[in-house]
């Protein structure tokens, strides 16, 4: 390889955005979709609607960041929706029924979300139950906890300071979008610039080689699932604030949306490779698609069909392209 190539190589690859063919494909799809929608609906490109897309995507995207870590490591987390519900009702009840201040309530909620994730990690790394089953168990249990805790009543009506997190704007940018940008930045940074991030990739590539290389597998798994719980908790705070209500039945099937975003973004379900940037694109495609279909008043039942086809199409094209190389 020539020197020039070397330098180019170094330059292009050191940026985490790593614009490989796959990502370019996704960006093109996203743009094509957007152009189509802006032709079909005059409202699509309005600033306010872009804010809508951002707000609506943020909840899925923040969860999907944690899910990206999980999937890169070769695992899966089905429990995010239920964990989200637990955090939602706990934060709501602390503020509303126990009179705690906003900050402490959120803090406790985030700690609880991370703790539930930690338990996932413990079950997976210590008892060695496969992630699918471990988090399936947690999915059921956490949902039960959310209902038992609230006796199925939503807990609503918070101070405007709290609802600002989900509904407010700073310099015209909706707060959920700002939080999402921070979460994405953290997600990218930790995955690409820290030791643990490096170990997550190693673990997902080959658990046995990772062990030979001296990586602490247990610690890494604990981190991954705790992080996923943490991100889910952040998302839960935003949902709770947006709805102005802590809801025990929120989050059902959120895991599927998150997984879809991650996989659309080019992260392989068999682990070892993937990127947060891809997940951002994946979540945006899903978000734009949902928004667009609402704008166009597509029947909700038909929306299901379109959504399924888009997932198959995107992943299918990707698979075919990969096989050709």
């Amino acid at each position, binding site marked *: 390889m020539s020197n020039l190539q070397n330098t180019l190589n170094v330059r292009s690859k050191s940026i985490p955005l790593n614009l490989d063919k796959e990502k370019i494909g996704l960006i093109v799809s996203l743009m094509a979709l957007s152009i189509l929608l802006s032709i079909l609906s005059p409202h699509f490109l309005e600033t306010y609607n872009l804010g809508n897309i951002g707000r609506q995507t943020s909840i899925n995207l923040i969860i999907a960041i944690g899910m990206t870590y999980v999937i890169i490591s070769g695992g899966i987390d089905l429990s995010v929706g239920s964990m989200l519900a637990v955090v939602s009702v706990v934060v709501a009840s602390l503020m509303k029924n126990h009179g705690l201040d906003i900050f402490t309530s959120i803090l406790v909620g985030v700690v609880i979300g991370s703790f539930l994730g930690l338990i996932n990690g413990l079950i997976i790394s210590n008892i060695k139950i496969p992630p699918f089953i471990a988090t399936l168990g947690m999915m059921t249990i956490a949902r039960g906890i959310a209902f038992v805790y609230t006796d199925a009543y939503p807990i609503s009506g918070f101070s405007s300071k709290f609802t600002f997190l989900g509904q407010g704007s700073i310099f015209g940018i909706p707060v959920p979008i700002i939080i999402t940008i921070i979460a994405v930045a953290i997600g990218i940074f930790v995955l690409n610039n820290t*030791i643990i991030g*490096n170990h997550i990739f190693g673990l997902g590539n080959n658990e046995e080689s990772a062990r030979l290389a001296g990586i602490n597998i247990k610690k890494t798994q604990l981190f991954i699932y705790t992080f996923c719980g943490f991100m889910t908790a952040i998302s839960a705070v935003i949902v709770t604030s947006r709805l102005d209500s802590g809801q025990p039945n929120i989050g059902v099937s959120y895991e599927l949306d998150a997984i879809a975003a991650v996989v659309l973004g080019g992260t392989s379900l068999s682990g*070892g490779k993937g990127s947060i940037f891809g997940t951002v694109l994946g979540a945006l495609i899903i978000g734009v698609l949902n928004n667009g279909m609402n704008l166009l008043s597509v029947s909700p039942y038909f929306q299901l069909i379109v959504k399924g086809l888009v997932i198959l199409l995107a992943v299918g094209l990707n698979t075919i392209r990969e096989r050709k190389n």
Partner: protein
Amino acid sequence: MKAISKTFPGVKALQDVDFDLLPGEVHALLGENGAGKSTLVKIISGVYQKDHGEFVYKGKSIHFSSPLEAREAGISTVYQELSLMEHMDIGRNIFLGREGQNRILGILDKKRIYKDSMQYLKKVKLNISPYTLVKNLSIAEKQLVEIAKAISFNAEVIIFDEPTSSLSEEEANNLFILIEELKKSGIGIIYISHKMSEIAKISDRITVFRDGKKIATKYTKEITIDEVLKMMVGREISLMEKKIIENTNGELLRVKNLSKKDSFQDISFYLNKGEILGFAGLVGAGRTEVMRAIYGADKLDSGEIMIDNKLVHIKNPHQAIAKGIVLVPEDRKGQGLFLNLGVDKNITISSLKDVSRFKVVNNKKNQDIAKKTVEKMNVKTPTIHQQISLLSGGNQQKCILGRCILLNPKVLIFDEPTRGIDVGAKSEIYKLMFELAEQGIGIIVVSSELPEIMAVSDRVVVMHEGKITGELKEDQINQENIINYMVGVTHYV
């Protein structure tokens, strides 16, 4: 190391082996496949635990319970099998697991990682950006990355287990220069290779293994290659003589100009009934890929395959079997076995059709066939329902052979038929090959063991870097000729 022993289920890999290594020395390990070289090395590097014996390191008796411990004690290893992370870049691979655990917040020092990696890559003369993903590298490049990784530990002992098996001559020479440098800085090196010329060039001492036992340790200068070979092979390869088949009844298989990009080019050869055709070549010469392509396991770019003088098109192994071609794959575990299934199912899975009516298997007949095969192949197993993963390698190999024979092949391709198999089993497998040949089956044997090739073949084709460099018959078949073709020298025949 004193009186080291190690037993695996069914195999005595090492028996009472003594071994020592001095600083600044290159100590070569020699021996046939399965002699126990890698096992010894893996005990030293903490991957396996010894059963018996004593391990003294820097004057102290020591025991490594993990590779990590060995590495921290200053022993670094290039394993025979590559262990890189395919989807990660070179720099991250080299520093995986020791990115600098003490740094605050655990932030990666990327600058250091890539700068240092670049340095190590330079040392192995690999001029590639450390940001390149490993999956985009060729096998040789991967091997060089493994070597770069091994030297990056600043170890006192470095072990190379067949580091040049997939390197070109130039790349190998670079490695030798590097080894010379390491030696000068007082590092002790254990070097395993099947290539005599290398050993003669770089080693100070040689230890020869045979069947898990140490034969001798000698100074390289005081011994000739012929003597070493004698020690390695040792026993007379007293195999049953193959009966010469009078009239080989004409041609069975012919391939013309087979090519596959980046793997092999213009491969043409033929195979007669009852003939055993050996395929020799260095590891990575492309023999396996040729055979897989003929078998339909990989796609061909171009070329023709003829069976019984008729052109055939084979798109997958299923069709190959239907046409009478059967392959015994080289990677037993990865490509041959069904580890969770019993001996019986492993043997009969390809030929269930023969005992079925309307796709329903007559389980009794099927069991009978499995039982008969087990008897015929002399597989040592408590029952035919025994999970195959519990059998020794040789017995596993016999089961796969049994499976292939049940398919009544016309052409049987063995890829490394005796890899990791003990001596007794080996000669049984040779015996079987001869029997099959006598029945008129055409056999191709791909092997990296020269003695094996020489012992069984009627004719030998030699490959080098994806091309056929020569073909040897009858009395032309000798070590010197084969090795010459193997390294790419073309002679007049």
